[in-house]
């Protein structure tokens, strides 16, 4: 770990003052479950670490039936999992947080941290960046161990998968988030928060070095059914192979509006717009759910070792849809 300066501001204004214009100058520390492990391996080498845990207005979870769910970026995954209104109205969020199968990460890891965490790609974690290449310029991911990599959205150079567990359900639920900087604050849909980096100096979100993610707002669930289905290799701590989050608004048993967002299949949470549209006007049953699953992966471009993830994505979508309707997990 590279030596660094540590700051622990108690207001967002102080925190913003402490951030730099470049990533190398400062990193934001929340739960620390990702940043610390990156710093230990020199995957992050900030000169200053700005610990924002003391900023009260970024903490907590509040629910008001008429306005929805407010998630402080510093609320932990455990707080979300244990929140009765979240359990009742937003099972897709609670299921996604529960998929993070480490008690320690659930207890320390924050909702904002989940959205901002860096790729779990093992080439990236071994210090080779987003677009790892060998000395002769060969693409290491495409010619190497890509079993956990992207099957969608991988037509550019990036082939890692977005590591966020909460991004897909938040996007499916139509959530927005608020970002603070010197210039004030801006609010945008969670769907616009993620991006595929085009160069090594980019990040996987639109956050700039001087900005802090402060809170997330999830609109009232109303009658929207929702669920997340995750496929993992093990039950104990493990990253997902594939997740699917769906929201369904039914009218007299027929789908009025649907959203389907896949996780861990692309460098960003993958919004399967056509698959969702295809559900409109249909009643949900095993067949329509399976059709949506097939539609969600219609454009998949698997790499040499991850063709199986196409099947997993197809099944995850089908099961998430069926679970949303049946209210199961």
């Amino acid at each position, binding site marked *: 770990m590279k030596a660094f300066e540590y700051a622990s501001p108690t207001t967002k204004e102080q925190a913003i003052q402490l951030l730099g214009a470049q990533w190398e100058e400062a990193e934001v520390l929340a739960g620390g479950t990702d940043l610390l492990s990156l710093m230990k391996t020199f995957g992050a080498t900030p000169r200053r670490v700005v610990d924002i845990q003391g900023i009260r207005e970024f903490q907590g979870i509040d629910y008001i039936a008429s306005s929805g769910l407010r998630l402080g970026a510093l609320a932990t995954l455990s707080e979300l999992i244990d929140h009765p209104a979240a359990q009742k109205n937003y099972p897709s969020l609670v299921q996604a947080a529960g998929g993070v199968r480490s008690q320690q990460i659930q207890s320390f890891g924050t909702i904002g941290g989940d959205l901002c965490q860096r790729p779990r790609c093992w080439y990236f974690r071994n210090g080779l960046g987003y677009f790892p290449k060998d000395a002769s310029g060969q693409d290491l991911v495409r010619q190497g161990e890509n079993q956990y990599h992207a099957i969608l959205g991988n037509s550019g150079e990036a082939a890692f998968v977005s590591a966020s567990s909460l991004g897909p359900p938040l996007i499916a639920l139509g959530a927005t988030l608020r970002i603070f900087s010197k210039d004030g604050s801006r609010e945008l849909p969670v769907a616009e928060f993620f991006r595929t980096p085009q160069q090594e100096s980019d990040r996987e979100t639109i956050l700039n070095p001087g900005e802090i993610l402060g809170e997330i707002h999830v609109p009232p669930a109303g009658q929207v059914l929702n669920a997340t289905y995750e496929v993992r*290799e093990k039950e104990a701590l493990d990253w997902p192979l594939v997740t699917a989050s769906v929201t369904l608004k039914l009218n007299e048993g027929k789908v009025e509006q649907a959203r389907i967002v896949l996780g861990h299949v692309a460098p960003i949470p993958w919004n399967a717009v056509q698959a969702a549209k295809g559900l409109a006007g249909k009643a949900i049953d095993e067949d329509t759910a399976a059709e949506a699953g097939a539609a969600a992966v219609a454009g998949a471009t698997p790499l040499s070792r991850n063709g199986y993830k196409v099947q997993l994505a197809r099944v995850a979508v089908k099961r998430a849809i069926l679970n949303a309707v049946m209210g199961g997990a």
Partner: protein
Amino acid sequence: MPEYRWPDRNERQVLGKRVSRLDGPDKVTGKAKYTSDVNLAGTLHAKFLRCPHAHARVTSIDTSAAESLPGVKAVRVIQGPGKEVQWSLDDIAVVAAVDEATAEDAVRRIAVEYEVLPHLVNEDDLGKAGDRTKPASEQVKGDPDQAFQDADAVVEGEYGIPVITHCCLEPHGQVIDWSGDTLTAYQSTQNISGMANQFAQPLEIPAANVSIVQDHVGGGYGSKFGADSWGLETARLSRETGRPVRNFLERDAELFVAGVRPSGFARIKVGAKKDGTLTAWEAESWGTSGLSGGGISMQVLPYVINPPNVRKKHTGIATNTGPARAWRAPNHPQTCWLTFAALDDLAARLEMDPLDFYLKNLNLTERPDLYRKQLIRAEELMGWRKKWRPRGQETTGPVKQGLGLAFHTWGGRGHNSTARLVVDPDGSVSVSMGTQDIGTGTTTVIAMVAAETFGLPVNSIKVNTGRSPDYPRSGPSGGSTTVGGVCAATRRACQLALEELFEKVAPRLGVEPSELEAASGRIRVKGKPFRSLTWKQAASRLGVTPLEVTGRNISASRRASDGKLIDSGVAGVQMAEVSVDTETGVVKMKKFVAIQDCGLIVNEKLADSQVYGSLIMGISSALTEERIMDERTGSLLNGEMEFYKLAGLGDIGQLVVEMWKDAEQDARGVIGLGEPPVIAPVGAIGNAVANAIGVRVPRAPFIPRRVLAALEEKGGLYA
């Protein structure tokens, strides 16, 4: 000399009981100090610069920037210009500094240039091994060609299991305090008594001046017998700086350079008669132990079941990867899986229940009677006959159930061990031995043997281990040899001590020494329990001089007078029940039954515990565990616990463990247990997966990628 034997079963007061481990409270409260907890005043921290290439020659190295960093006390070059490095993460240089961060900063300031050389790091495809192959000569028994011709059913398949690592929770390491002409090594080890010489010779210091200290160890599994190159470097740094130096490996080095298990792959052909009689075996196997080639040993392939006609050939593949070390039951888990997978496929071809197939062929094993009894008992505990369905069952829904079985063998004869037993005039008893409790409960069983022999409570016996040369020599904890070695040595010492004590006490009770016995806290006249002295009164007859005796176990000795304190050779049967989601390829453990014999069971609770731990390790190896190398860069990709996947509680399912306790096995004496139960899980689970989905998943671990690929090849249970 007394007749060395265990008390008759119905007379035992302590042996065989479910005594909780004596170090349990210390371990769960954190009072237990592991070597990595040792923190001496003035300690320096060592960090290694590790080679980033799988194969390279060092062309230049410049340590000046590291040396000039404040806080750095020593820098040593381990592999300088001209040295050929054969695997990544090998030691190039080492720094000792006042704290860990400074040492790490210094390491990053060392500039090394390499000439990168060609490497091979993956061996799963024999066809890509090129000139890295090291073939062994073919071995033939009987007439395999004729036997295959005469066979009614012949099955061919290719099976494999990759390299896995020891993955000790407490990484390899030590704190070395070289002070004047003595060296104290606080070493994380499974080899207390064998360690001093490993430091003494290369460091040119008399072995008598080397002390080894360890109270608790956080895992070894066969990888912690040596002083290790990094241990010697740590010692040199301590000598150079005159201060204690501490070194514990980083996780990636722990996983890659401090011990791995060889891989094993094989193309296997097996033949049988219509009635299931196994007649022929042919195998071409390969694997790697690292640069030496190696891989699994042909000597245990086929495993346990030895058909009359055999042809086998093995090819080692030299890879640029960290060298293999003994991994809990070396060779057996891999060859057990390869063998039982092939035989299970043969049973399926014959449309036989594999249980019947194995019962039919037990005459090809060394313990037909014991395996038969154990298979029958395992069947009852699993409900095999009720649950078993042939492969390719037509059931509704994507989740399929399956059963599989495998069985195993191991030696486990007690190693050379010397126990020093002291009875003080106040009645206190201590047993000292240069052994180590690697989590198996060694200290507890030593206390139990002494307590049984003296008729005293277990917690009244003080057991001293983990020091050399302070305590008499004992063997390394490998090969399941510890329990036999320490129990036999302790029993002998205790019986010798009693003989002496009886001499002192007999006149007081007015009988001959041979008429006395030790029981229920007293020395008493046999058949006249009211003529007795308390243990304390008896010990006071020693006057002011403690009674000190040594008892030895000599492993090679089989003199008749040794009686039946220890023996070698066990069986053991395991059955797995799994469910497999054919849409996702996810395999889940439902139930696992393990029947295990180990002769006389010293402590049934600790024995159960050994088996549970083994099963969990085996389940990891079956379901998720695998070293993953990047062929292009030659580097380890999953050198962190987030990617090196071990089973957690939710992955294990129900474990049913039953120790085998019949009189015949009990009469054989104590036999080691650490290894046998870890052997069969992959075979049992792999066969259960095949039974569930109707198609063989040929390579472990059985992750969704491989399960789905096997289903697809078959034509697909999924669209």
